[in-house]
């Protein structure tokens, strides 16, 4: 394999041809913020928080998708880079509920002194986002910063979709589409600020093509897509990640050998995920592996007790 030499933040780096600038940065332990990037999905380079400065390039370039070239001189922390990342984070934070983004993202936002309030107070939630027509939008007076805040969608027993938290990173679409599940139950609809993740004609998930594999939830970086069980525990203020253990095991529902991560709180499974770094699943599961655990919950002295009652009792005992 051919090797390529480049300079990142003054450091000489040699990497294999064909890797991305993000890979090259990581090879020298220089982390970059990312939102729409995931190792197991094709880069869509839409969130633009991973942009870096490449000498000779008119604009900044997305490190997640740009391939290395010999002789590149790259800045990942220049004033220009910091500026773009700050403003992009401000745009997101001023329009989307980012309360559930991961810890590293929060740290990046702090390090860039992100101030979403500079665009004005957030506008009130709206309920017509799924009906908007491309090329047309309502009168803008500028008093408040428009947001994507809207009612949460609860239309089935397994998932909730809270698009007030959606940054439109396309990951769920990719995971549901040809990067993994190939079910294509959801896509981006509409245009511009009114672009949104949608089923055909905004039908409910059970009416649409969804097969409830949960792989969209598995890749969502902002908590916009969530297991209904987690959502309800959070609503009841019973979701306590610091009390949860995560145990890796193998799914029992067929012979493929998918690895599961069982998230257990007070001896109850509260969520099932799959490790992204495992060659069999790459983080993806089917409906059985993701949700088929209920039968081990129903046994014993806890038989038929709703999970929130059990957890509430466990908390009062501890």
């Amino acid at each position: 394999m051919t090797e390529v030499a480049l300079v990142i933040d003054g450091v000489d780096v040699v990497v294999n041809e064909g890797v991305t600038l993000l890979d090259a940065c990581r090879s020298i332990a220089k982390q970059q913020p990312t939102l729409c990037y995931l190792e197991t999905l094709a880069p869509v380079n839409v969130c633009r928080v991973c942009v870096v400065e490449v000498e000779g390039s008119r604009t900044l370039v997305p490190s997640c998708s740009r391939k290395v070239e010999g002789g590149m001189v790259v800045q990942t922390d220049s004033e220009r880079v910091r500026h773009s990342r700050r403003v992009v984070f401000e745009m997101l934070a001023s329009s989307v509920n980012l309360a559930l983004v991961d810890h590293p993202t929060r740290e990046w936002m702090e390090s860039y002194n992100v101030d979403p309030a500079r665009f004005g107070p957030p506008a009130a939630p709206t309920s017509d986002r799924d009906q908007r027509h491309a090329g047309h939008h309502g009168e803008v007076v500028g008093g408040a910063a428009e947001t994507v805040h809207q009612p949460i969608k609860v239309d089935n027993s397994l998932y909730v979709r809270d698009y007030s938290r959606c940054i439109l990173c396309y990951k769920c679409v990719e995971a549901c589409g040809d990067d993994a599940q190939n079910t294509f139950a959801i896509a981006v609809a509409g245009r511009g600020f009114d672009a949104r993740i949608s089923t055909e004609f905004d039908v409910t998930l059970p009416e649409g093509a969804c097969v409830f594999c949960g792989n969209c939830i598995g890749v969502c970086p902002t908590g916009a897509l969530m297991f209904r069980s987690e959502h309800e525990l959070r609503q009841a203020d019973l979701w306590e990640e610091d009390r949860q253990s995560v145990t890796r095991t193998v799914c029992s529902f067929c012979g493929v050998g998918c690895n599961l991560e069982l998230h257990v709180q007070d001896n109850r499974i509260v969520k099932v995920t799959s490790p992204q770094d495992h060659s069999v699943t790459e983080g993806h599961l089917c409906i059985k592996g993701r949700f088929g655990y209920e039968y081990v919950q129903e046994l014993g002295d806890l038989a038929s007790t709703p999970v929130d009652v059990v957890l509430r009792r466990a908390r009062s005992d501890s």
Partner: protein
Amino acid sequence: MFGAGGGTSSYEEIETTSVIFLWGSNARAAHPIFFHHLLRGLHNGARLYVVDPRRSESARWADMWMGIDVGSDIALANAMANVIIERGLANHDFVNNATTGFEAYAKTVAGYPLERAAEITGIPGDAIEQAAIAYATAATAQIVWTLGITEHHNATDNVLALTNLALLTGHVGRYGSGLVPLRGQNNVQGGGDMGAIPNKLPGFQDVEDPVLRGRVEEIWGRPIPPEKGWHLTQMFEACHAKMLRGLYVIGENPADSEADSTHAREGLASLDFMVVEDIFMTSTAEMADVVLPAAADWAESEGTVTSSERRVQRVRKALDPPGEAKTDLEIISRLAEAMGAGWGLPTAEEVWDELRRVSPLHTGMSYRRLDELGGIQWPCYDENHPGEKFIHHRLWKVPVEGPPAPFFPVEWVAPVDRLTDKFPLRMTTGRHLDGFNTGVQSGGFDSPIRVGGTIDLSPEDAERLAIAPGEMVQVISRRGQVEVPARIDSSLREGLVFMAVHYSETADVNRLTIEAWDPKSGTAEFKATAVRVEKAGV
């Protein structure tokens, strides 16, 4: 296959192979994550041929779907072989070097010219020809199968018909080319690997080979009965013949899962004594003299399971088992204690380390390495061995390393349960995406896509019988009948009906199925039942 019972290839190989035959498998529903790998293969340009009586979810992705008549797989495979030989597309270098019995095989498949095969299979000759050429001329090709091949009275012959094709074309023992049986449960493969089959010790060591048996006897410090045991169907025959008087059932529910369940239950009822060890109070457990409540293997116990790509992986305890339930290991150890064996209460790792001494295929797989490597694919002979992505590369050594692989010529035989005027419809069985086996486990969650137990009819049959969607109907076979709602399914064609296996309480398919079983493997012919469908209450 060729000495060791496991899929020859890794899932990753299907992502870059050229031609894929999915034969008697609806992996999209039954093995969804394997199908992810297959889909990546399609996106990378692989051509997919699906052999399935139903135009299943999987078949809808196919470049060519071959809607074979149920139970005619051998005729199709032999006809393909005949095309390949006649057109000079056999891999003669490979055949000469690595196989035996080609002449007899060629003679057998010569009895399957296209016209005859088309007659038997329902597949037009030009399609058979196209499939054969595609397989033979592919740079690499995989044949993947599941129960559509093995749940027949001639299951072993079906498998041999496919392995013969691979030998004929050299599509085995190379990266990207292979034979991939997908397993239905997380440790079907591991159970066999560990010796939980009548004729093998752990690591596929023949129990009737005195040298191999002696080695294991030495490690275990106990004599091992020198003859192979009964497989499942033989056990039921032995029940009925009063030769089997006591049974210890671990994690199986034969009262529901056996074909012709009425007959199976009679066999269990005739026993003097039955112990059932299970995580559920199953129908079988209801009949037991003693029930031992067990912990779920995948969430409440420690151990290993082995997947369809021979990957040994650890299962781990995440939950305390409920009530008095104990792990299978603890139950067996305590039983052994009670019998005075003096095993104590070994940990899962201690048991595994003993297995590593017994089975050369697993020797290099310490728990530490299994953790570090995300599982290891057998064989793994020592702690420096990474395991093998694909097996049987020895067949490509010139001269071949070890014994050559024999062709086993096989002839087509029609399904046992004949179609007649009284039972004119061919019923086959299968799985739904959100269901699992008899449904005891998968029934526990609230699936938004659950279809439930139905008899699925082609639009043509539904119209002919004047049956509306959702209407309750009687499905009647020579052995029994069930009343279920009808569902109209355009993936079926006239004369073919379908039932899923997951709904024993509401749609007990095994009241209908036939117990005709394969003498070599002991699997029953779940896939081919003759039925008629009548409007309920007529």
